[in-house]
């Protein structure tokens, strides 16, 4: 039983990181119907900036997290402005291809700047082990899950209570009607990218603290899995991304724990196929029909 609970906590740990990254995917899709494949690289650069902040500048923990999130928001907005805005009215395929291009560009940029050798993330969180009955939880795990939940609640409040949050929801629902209502659509979309990228960066930092290494292709797998999480929960629906992230984290950990490590990735990807075949709108998605 204890082993099971221990694995459950492992699943929550990796699941919360996937959830943070999945939110970025889902927010962007919700607002401009684009799957931002470069989001995994945003996570990766977030980790690198945190690494630089922690090692070259020796900043305290909160400064490391904030600086990484703020820098990546700016970069996320810049990417949107340069790569996606000009294609706002182009066919969806063009924007998708551009997104893949941006992803490859960022990976190779990181390769040139930082070199392929993995960097070791210093321990910015205190390292203690807490005992909850028979179960051991490390402080890093607690901080990861805690921070993720905190920011997810914060985001939820932001979307529901603030004016900009309502604007984001409006633009997601109907862009043209939002323009008619006087909402500055460009600004709202940029804000969405900023928030999504900030959360992606946080995911990247937490990932690199949990798994120690920072390297140029570190965003590929987690990015893909977070994307699957977003689709599973319902692409475009933020609580869906959170739910999907935790489910994928659980599935991956439990498969490794009880089935086989080699099957873990295969099963996660199989979930994507099954979801798309049977319920493409995801768990929390509604079957909206276009009314003529």
């Amino acid at each position, binding site marked *: 039983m204890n082993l099971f609970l221990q694995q459950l906590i492992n699943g929550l740990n*990796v699941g919360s990181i996937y959830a943070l990254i999945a939110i970025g995917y889902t927010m962007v899709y919700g607002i401009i119907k684009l799957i931002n494949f470069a989001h995994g690289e945003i996570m990766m650069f977030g980790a690198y900036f945190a690494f630089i902040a922690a090692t070259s500048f020796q900043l305290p923990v909160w400064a490391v997290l904030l600086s990484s999130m703020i820098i990546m928001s700016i970069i996320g907005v810049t990417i949107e402005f340069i790569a996606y805005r000009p294609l706002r009215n182009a066919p969806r395929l063009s924007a998708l291809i551009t997104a893949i291009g941006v992803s490859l560009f960022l990976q190779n940029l990181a390769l040139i700047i930082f070199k392929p050798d993995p960097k070791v993330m210093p321990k910015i969180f205190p390292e203690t*082990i807490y005992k909850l009955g028979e179960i051991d939880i490390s402080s890093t795990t607690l901080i990861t899950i805690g921070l993720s939940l905190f920011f997810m609640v914060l985001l939820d409040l932001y979307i529901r209570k603030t004016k900009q949050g309502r604007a984001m929801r409006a633009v997601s629902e109907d862009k043209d009607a939002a323009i008619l209502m006087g909402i500055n659509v460009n600004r709202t979309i940029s804000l969405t990218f900023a928030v999504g990228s900030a959360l992606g960066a946080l995911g990247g930092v937490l990932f690199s603290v949990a*798994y120690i290494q920072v390297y140029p292709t570190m965003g590929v797998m987690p990015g893909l899995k977070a994307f699957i999480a977003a689709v599973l929960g319902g692409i475009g629906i933020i609580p869906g991304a959170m739910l999907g992230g935790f489910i994928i984290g659980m599935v991956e950990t439990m498969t*490794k*724990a009880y089935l086989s*490590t*080699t099957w873990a990735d295969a099963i996660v990807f199989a979930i994507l196929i099954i979801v798309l075949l049977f319920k493409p709108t995801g768990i929390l998605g509604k079957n909206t029909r276009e009314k003529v």
Partner: protein
Amino acid sequence: MKKRVLSVLLVMIFTASIFAFAGCTTSGGSADADVVKLGFIGPMTGDAAIYGSSAEEGAQLAVAEINEAGGIDGKNIELVAYDSKADQTEAINAYNRLRDQDGVVAVIGGTLSGETLAMKDIMVQDNMPVLSPTATAVEVTEDAPNVFRTCFLDDYQGQAAANFAATTLSAKTAALLIGTGNPYSEGVSEAFKTAFTAKGGTIAGSESYGTADKDFSAQLTKIKDMNPDVVFVPDYVQTVGPILQKAKEMGITAKFVGADGWDGVQEEYADAAQGNYFTNHYAADSPSETVQNFITAYKAEYNKVPNSFAALGYDAVCAMVAAITAAGSTESADIITALGATDHPGVTGTLKFDEEGNPKDKEVTIIKIDGGQLKFDSTVVNQ
């Protein structure tokens, strides 16, 4: 009109770039009669960069020393090195380039077992004299009369690790953590398992991970639950480091034992690796004169203490040059015969080959990681 100009311009740029990069691969392939060329293949970038670059540094040091002492009958040696990036296709391309464009008479390589196995068939076909400094997988020298190696084999070091764990560490139970798809990790752990059970120990369990996996929490949680005396993790530094770190985070108290791939783990993962052991080819604090001379020369050149890969690279070049000198010619067949008769006192021990091309009766050094340093613990010779 604007679109047309733009697309024509792009096509011209792409075409030009093809020619620019095609130019990069050709090198001066003319055979120089006064230079004996040796080839070197190993990973110099990526996760396994430390192995290739260290082995190359050791090799280059040997080349410099030999040239200073007069070379081979007055001819200078040149080491042509290529980066395999730990990728098997890259390694094969590198070998083809060494053979065709650089005209090397022998190859010091590959560094990793995976890439050496990938090149093995072509090397055997060409009857190229090959001395791998560090490839430890058993299959590397099987049915390959022209392929030799300076290092002990995976099954040899797996056995040594098991003997060490059972005897010196008095371990009764052991858990294995294996990297699937990595012939090195799989080979050494297989040997450990056999030898450990033969010594009366029990294998508490065996967990595995994929080569690209970075999340070991599920496997380590299971291992912690098994509560073994010793955990055996034979893999490369960039995988072992995070594993040890995670294990420490989870509060696993078992001793971790590794294989020669651990060399270098004390640099970035000193904390996590504290108090653990691994099997290695040599110890930097060994009192032997040969070892200390090598370390002094290496420090003077590269400003750091050499790891075992550097030592093996150095020994490989020295042994190869000794064979070419003894053969008195650069013909493949002559070099191969001379290699077979090698009796060379190297930094990593006396080098003598058996019929397979593997070193005979080599000592395995057990290293303990203490305070961020590698300290000599003991030696094991398998019965």
